[in-house]
């Protein structure tokens, strides 16, 4: 009997542990996913409730009104159509379910779900409709309007600017955009936010991650010399560099390069060699430390998950992955985060887009703060990579982004996409300036090389940031 009693006690611990597990997981999943569940398109309950709510206003970081409501609760947007268009993907539109927009993801505040019981009672007694909370975003509307003016007319693409110290998203633009006052005229596909929802091959910008993998796994990477022989046969595929035209007999050949030189010249051949030498496992591990294959459950921003393929890995696939091609899929915002992590001494901050929610009477409902998402690099690795990204701009493929007297760092990319005439032009980079801690990603689809198309746009954005955020 004595032994039995002891066993019973042990069993009791296990049973209690099950309850604790249930409570702990419940608390975890509700706090992480609650807002995603609430803002789902399947939330019929919230949709019904909206009939009785005047939605709160959406403001930019300095208080510029990006969306307000009239007395009936209908959305009213600013007079300036350039401002409306430049911020539409951050603000959202009731005509579309734009997953990563404020209108969608902060609906719990905007549509009055966070009202307290006394507040509800007050509205009910006065016989008024509920008034939702105002939401102030991290978005800088002036910057957004400026970027929208720079972007090549008629091209698809995206631009993201964030503060790498805090993870605040200053701009999140997608092109083509549309006017929320005239949603009927919205071009097809314009409600997709290409900055966060559209996953594409990152091209050579991925070499930031391949280089990080080399630093992690090759002890002597700084002293090694790699040879680019022009063509590299990997399995059934051939790795070539930009400028190579086999039909015309033209082959780009870089010769002997250090890792830093290969990075600044963006040599596919050498990065393919590195990928093969490291092996798929090691490269994937580094990519995953940067957030690939993770389920992005950011508290205050919806970003489509990036993927580093785990199956069908042939030698040719692995080689091309080192150079950012193959089946890699990533959003511009995520590549911007990768650059931001390099800039921020290896610490990747969680991106966020809401500064605060305030009640109709001006009180604070909720305030938000920055959080670390991951630490993919050590401080030393980050400073070496920063140096690499600096030489890209001073003497490599990204010289078009250079500003005299300002430390601009970056990486270009020209991603080949099946069925497109031109490559997708990428530039990700950052200002290595303590007063202007900004990272950006610019992608112009089907437009040409990253160094010639996107780097100049990046330069103008950086100049604006230096001028306007001293």
């Amino acid at each position, binding site marked *: 009997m004595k032994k039995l009693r002891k066993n019973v006690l042990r*069993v009791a611990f296990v*049973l209690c542990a099950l309850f604790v597990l*249930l409570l702990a997981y*419940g608390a975890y999943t509700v706090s992480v996913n609650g807002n995603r569940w609430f803002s789902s398109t*399947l*939330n019929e309950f*919230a949709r*019904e409730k909206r009939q009785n709510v005047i939605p709160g206003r959406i403001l930019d970081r300095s208080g510029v009104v990006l969306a307000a409501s009239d007395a009936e609760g209908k959305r009213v947007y600013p007079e300036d159509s350039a401002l409306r268009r430049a911020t539409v993907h951050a603000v959202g539109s009731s005509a579309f379910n734009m997953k990563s927009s404020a209108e969608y993801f902060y609906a719990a505040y905007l549509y009055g779900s966070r009202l307290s*019981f006394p507040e509800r009672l007050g509205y009910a007694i006065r016989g008024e409709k509920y008034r939702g909370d105002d939401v102030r975003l991290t978005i800088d509307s002036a910057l957004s309007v400026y970027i929208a003016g720079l972007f090549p007319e008629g091209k698809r693409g995206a631009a993201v600017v964030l503060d790498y110290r805090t993870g605040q998203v200053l701009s999140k633009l997608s092109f083509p955009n549309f006017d929320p006052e005239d949603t009927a005229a919205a071009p097809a596909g314009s409600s997709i936010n290409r900055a966060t929802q559209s996953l594409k091959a990152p091209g050579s910008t991925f070499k930031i991650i391949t280089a990080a993998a080399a630093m992690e796994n090759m002890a002597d990477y700084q002293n090694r010399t790699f040879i680019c022989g022009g063509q590299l046969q990997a399995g059934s595929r051939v790795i070539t560099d930009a400028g190579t035209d086999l039909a015309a007999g033209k082959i780009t050949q870089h010769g002997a390069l250090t890792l830093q030189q290969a990075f600044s010249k963006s040599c596919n051949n050498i990065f393919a060699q590195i990928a093969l030498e490291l092996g798929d496992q090691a490269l994937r591990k580094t990519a995953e430390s940067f957030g690939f294959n993770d389920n992005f459950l950011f508290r205050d921003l919806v970003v489509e998950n990036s993927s580093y393929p785990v199956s069908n890995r042939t030698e040719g696939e692995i080689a091309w992955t080192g150079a950012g091609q193959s089946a890699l899929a990533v959003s511009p915002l995520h590549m911007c985060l990768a650059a931001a992590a390099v800039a921020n001494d290896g610490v990747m901050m969680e991106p966020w887009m809401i500064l605060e929610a305030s009640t109709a009477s001006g009180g604070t409902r909720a305030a938000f703060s920055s959080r670390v998402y991951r630490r993919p690099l050590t401080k030393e690795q980050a400073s070496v990579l920063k140096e690499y990204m600096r030489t890209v701009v001073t003497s490599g493929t990204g010289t078009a982004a250079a500003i005299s007297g300002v430390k601009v760092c970056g990486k270009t990319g020209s991603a080949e996409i099946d069925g497109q005439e031109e490559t997708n032009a990428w530039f990700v980079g950052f200002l290595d300036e303590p007063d202007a801690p900004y990272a950006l990603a610019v992608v112009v689809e089907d437009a040409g090389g990253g160094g010639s198309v996107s780097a100049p746009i990046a330069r103008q954005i950086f100049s604006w940031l230096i001028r306007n955020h001293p």
Partner: protein
Amino acid sequence: MSKNASARRRDPARGMMAASMLFFFVGFLLLAVKDGQWQCFLLSLIVPLIIYAGTAILPRLFPADKLLLSLTNFLCALGVLILYRISPSRGLNQAVNYGVGVGCMVLCTLLVRYVKSWKTLTVLMMGGSMLLLSLPLLIGTEQNGAKNWIWIGSYSLQPSEIVKLALLLCVSYLLSQRKAALSILFGGACLVLLMLQKDLGTALLYYGLCLVMLYAATGSLALVGAGLAGGAGAAAAGYHMFAHVKARLAVWQDPWKYTQGIGLQIVRSFVAIANGGLWGVGLGLGNAGNSTRAGGIPEAHNDFIFPVILHEFGLIFGVIVLLMYLFIVIRAVMIARRSNTAFHALLSVGGAALITIQTFVIIAGNIKLIPLTGVTLPFISYGGTSMVSSLCVIGFLQGVASRNQAGVDEDRALAMQGGDVP
């Protein structure tokens, strides 16, 4: 402590009973005013009365654990309330189930209290169990991928719910007689029959129960390890054998991919929980339980009753409900530790395990901690068999508790002389 002093102390069970009577009186009254149906006015009186009968009158007939009674009665009444709110006809049925269940609980209490020899009964129950579990295979109907129901006239019956009780009693008895091999054989046979019915949720329940009791009786980690290995093997086999297991696992990994079909239930449940928030949307004001309303959870009265409670009453209330289950389990364990015979100890700890595992499996399934398997939430889910079997388990616990009390009385004389009181 003298008897007078202990009587003067405030009795927590009594306070809880009064609070829950008031809670359900107001709850049903609110629903009655909202919908204007006379049955509901009636329920606002009848349900508190059943609570009173179940909590205050029963302990006068025989020594019983009042705290256990008041917790159980609260959960049962909560089931009636939330089911009435989802569908008045189901709520009324459930009120009847509740009444019948209380009756069965009393019978089970008396059974454990007065039956002295379990040998013949155990043999009978083992034979009966095999027969009952074979029935659905012969004359059963398939529902949600599992063939575990039989229909008698217009009444449906889930034999596995009744056999669950027999399993608990038989395994307790066999293990108390140190017949571990026979109990494993019996449990294994039940599991095989359940697997054939494709009733994997209940199989999981039986499996967990047998494992826990085996450990409690033998204390052998080797046996538990072997059991776990066997379970893993059976799970792998089940995955390959049954298409609906594969589908459930896929939904578990990402229900949002299947919102047009089998994932809808769990996704709607998430949305309902999110809408409820900490305080809930209010009784009768939600949409989650009503499958005819936009956004309602399909089949909410069965597997998804807990999310409906979270939706209308909020997360804080949900935590309180979970804590009530936990207290019931702790109480059961205390009864087990105080019991004087191995049979009684095993029966109580088995009852505790049964309630825990069942609660865990369904709620963890609701919040996607584990893949969803269709077991009922004890005391709350809709269904006569489920309600009766859950209350019978409480009946067993009460029976053991009353025997413990009797034991204490007999031992008191011994204790006076300095003997060891268990």
